[in-house]
């Protein structure tokens, strides 16, 4: 056991967890910790807004699968981080957020820069702590990392009063963490696995519906094995993209509000829906009573609260997706009556039907001469990066076009705010991912509105050599809202035209980055090429068709088969 200051102990705990990089912004309440950071080998990435720090930690976590870490000061520092904490919470992303707090003696006194951040973040963290007693500091940090990364992952916040960080604490050896009140359940019940497999054997029109859980549990290989072994088509939620290769013939792409025609039709006609790490979100199901009306439902999820929350499940499997899929693969491999060739044959008529839907209404858009179509931009980015870039997105049409037209073959390559839909997520998340993978191409597919929400992080990217590329699909509108107004509000464009937008090329230059612009279709490819070849942060400003829409679209509250098509 060694004695050291709280600040030293925190740094040691981070090192113990293998943390190499943290994202943060200093202030009076965390100044001791910042002083200690200077002498440590942990890289601290100074952001320009605390929301950026937490999104960057989240981007790091999504890209690597490790716990991302952010450090914020008390009061406004902490509240600035809340949107990003909620973003991570909705998408089950493992991050640990350390916030400074006023000294314990002042808590509750409305002290300078005091805010009850534990109270504020209670509903948007997996768990949170106020460390009142120096002897709890080290155990709390260890527990926080454990909670963030196990079970259904999520953000954990630790509020650190200044005097606790400054006091002397004991640093003892780390023991295996066992919590009386928290025991995530990883292994599937063998009986349920067998039931599920038998239901699959009996099904004529099965569909795999996969979500972010497949990616969080690193189950993409097991999932791919199962789909291919059984010859079952796969549809993905926004969070599930990359959980199964997007270019595989069995991939139907995304389902739901802006899902592909084939995905939504397949679910509607299916007799067995195999949901893996997905949570039947309203953007996926549309009108609930019309969702998969003929299907028996198998649901694999590590979180029991996800099961039968929105849709009644016939065969629940509470388990880690990867363990459950392994169990199912093994069951089929050991089953005497299962014959992969026969299974392929049996599903052939169903796959034919699915293929017909795909051919009848593929993801499409109408060309318009010289005008740049956003879908074309995404397709070209896909092509010129070989489908292998890490793509982050902002929120709105840009996000949906990225999801539809970039073909993700690998997990952890699409980082996007799915659950909360946070505009301003893409740039800081891209910086987080780029810090983790400096050799990878990282591109934020952005909207002109969203990018302005955290544009200040261009300075962060420049300062830390995170040479991310930003592709702005610039329609000079808050486009997704405009699209709703066009379709459902009589084209009354209330507050969606962006009357003043900065010159993004000049803006890039002001930050010491490179700005490129494409005004016509034939300029798209050269601009992307140049951006990819430029050894700097680059903003690409694509002047796209202003009133382009995202299709297919299921109007809110309608059945997913009631799609508006191109």
């Amino acid at each position, binding site marked *: 056991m060694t004695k050291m200051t709280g600040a030293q102990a925190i740094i040691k705990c981070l090192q113990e967890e293998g943390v190499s990089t943290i994202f943060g912004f200093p202030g009076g309440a965390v100044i001791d910790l910042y002083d200690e950071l200077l002498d440590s080998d942990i890289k601290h990435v100074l952001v320009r807004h605390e929301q950026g720090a937490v999104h960057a930690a989240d981007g790091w976590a999504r890209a690597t699968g490790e716990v991302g870490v952010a450090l914020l000061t008390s009061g406004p520092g902490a509240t600035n981080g809340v949107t990003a904490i909620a973003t991570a919470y909705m998408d089950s992303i493992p991050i640990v957020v350390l916030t400074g707090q006023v000294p314990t003696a002042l808590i509750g006194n409305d002290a300078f820069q005091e805010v009850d951040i534990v109270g504020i973040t*209670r*509903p948007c963290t997996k768990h949170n702590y*106020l460390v009142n007693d120096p002897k709890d500091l080290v155990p709390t940090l260890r527990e926080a990392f454990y909670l963030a990364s196990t079970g259904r992952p999520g953000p954990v916040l630790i509020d650190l009063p200044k005097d606790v960080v400054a006091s002397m604490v004991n640093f003892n050896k780390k023991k295996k963490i066992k919590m009386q009140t928290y025991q995530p359940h990883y292994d599937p019940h063998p009986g349920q696995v067998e039931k599920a497999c038998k239901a699959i054997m009996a099904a004529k029109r099965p569909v795999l519906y996969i979500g972010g859980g497949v990616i969080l549990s690193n189950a993409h290989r097991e999932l791919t094995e199962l789909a291919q072994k059984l010859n079952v088509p796969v549809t993905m939620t926004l969070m599930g993209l990359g959980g199964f290769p997007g270019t595989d013939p069995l991939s139907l792409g995304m389902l739901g509000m802006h899902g592909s025609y084939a995905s939504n039709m397949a679910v509607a006609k299916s007799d067995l829906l195999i949901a893996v790490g997905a949570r039947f979100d309203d953007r996926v199901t549309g009108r609930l009573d019309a969702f998969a009306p003929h299907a028996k439902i198998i649901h694999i999820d590590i979180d*029991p*609260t996800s099961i039968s929350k929105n849709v*009644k499940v016939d065969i629940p499997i509470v388990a880690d997706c990867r363990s459950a899929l392994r169990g199912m693969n093994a069951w089929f491999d050991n089953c005497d009556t299962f014959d992969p060739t026969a299974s392929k044959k049996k599903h052939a008529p169903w796959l034919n039907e699915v293929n017909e839907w795909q051919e009848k209404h593929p993801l499409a858009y109408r060309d318009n001469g010289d005008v740049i179509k956003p879908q074309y931009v995404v397709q070209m980015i896909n092509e010129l990066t070989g489908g292998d870039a890490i793509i982050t997105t902002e929120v709105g049409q840009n996000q949906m076009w990225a999801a539809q037209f970039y073909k993700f073959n690998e997990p952890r390559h699409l980082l996007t705010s799915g659950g909360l839909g946070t505009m301003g997520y893409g740039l800081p998340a891209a910086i987080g991912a780029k810090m983790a993978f400096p050799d990878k191409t990282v591109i934020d597919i952005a909207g002109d509105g969203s990018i302005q929400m955290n544009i200040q992080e261009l300075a962060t990217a420049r300062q830390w050599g995170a040479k991310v590329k930003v592709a702005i699909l610039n329609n000079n509108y808050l486009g997704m809202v405009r699209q709703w107004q066009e379709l459902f509000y009589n084209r009354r464009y209330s507050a969606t035209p962006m009357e003043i937008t900065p010159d993004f090329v000049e803006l890039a230059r002001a930050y010491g980055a490179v700005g490129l612009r494409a005004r016509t279709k034939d300029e798209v490819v050269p601009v992307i090429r140049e951006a990819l070849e430029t050894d700097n942060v680059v903003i690409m400003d694509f002047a796209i068709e202003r009133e382009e829409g995202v299709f297919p679209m299921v109007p809110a509250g309608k059945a997913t088969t009631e799609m508006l098509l191109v």
Partner: protein
Amino acid sequence: MKHTLSVLLQNKPGALSRVTGLFSGRGFNIESLCVAETLDPKISCLTLVTRGEEQIIEQITKQLHKLIDVIKVSDISEGEFVEREMVLIRVKAEAATRAEVLRIIDIFRGKVVDVSPSSYAVEITGPESKIMAVIDILRPIGIKEIIRTGTIAMARAPKK
């Protein structure tokens, strides 16, 4: 349907607010809530009465269980259980009604705990149905104030 949940949770600051925050945040209703320490001072027991369809109760139970500070959740109304609530009622007791009030209280095995020239404060314990019955009977006489504890409940031991 009415359900009585018994929840063991860590006796820590903020733990109770995680429970109540869950109910308000997800739109579940709380009919009554009673909390106090158990024999182990590190653990509190909370009795919560709520209403909802099976699927809602299932969600409530699972969501409660998911809270890191919660140790155990049981829906004790699923089996045999005893429930008790205590109520303090200040009831008008003027010359004409004093004897009547005492008679009623006696029938319900209540106790007078405070006396004034114009009122009695009485204490009554029992299941919610009994409390409601007392209230209904005393209402015409004139209830000035009423304080209820909410229900506490315990599963019956198996009879073998």
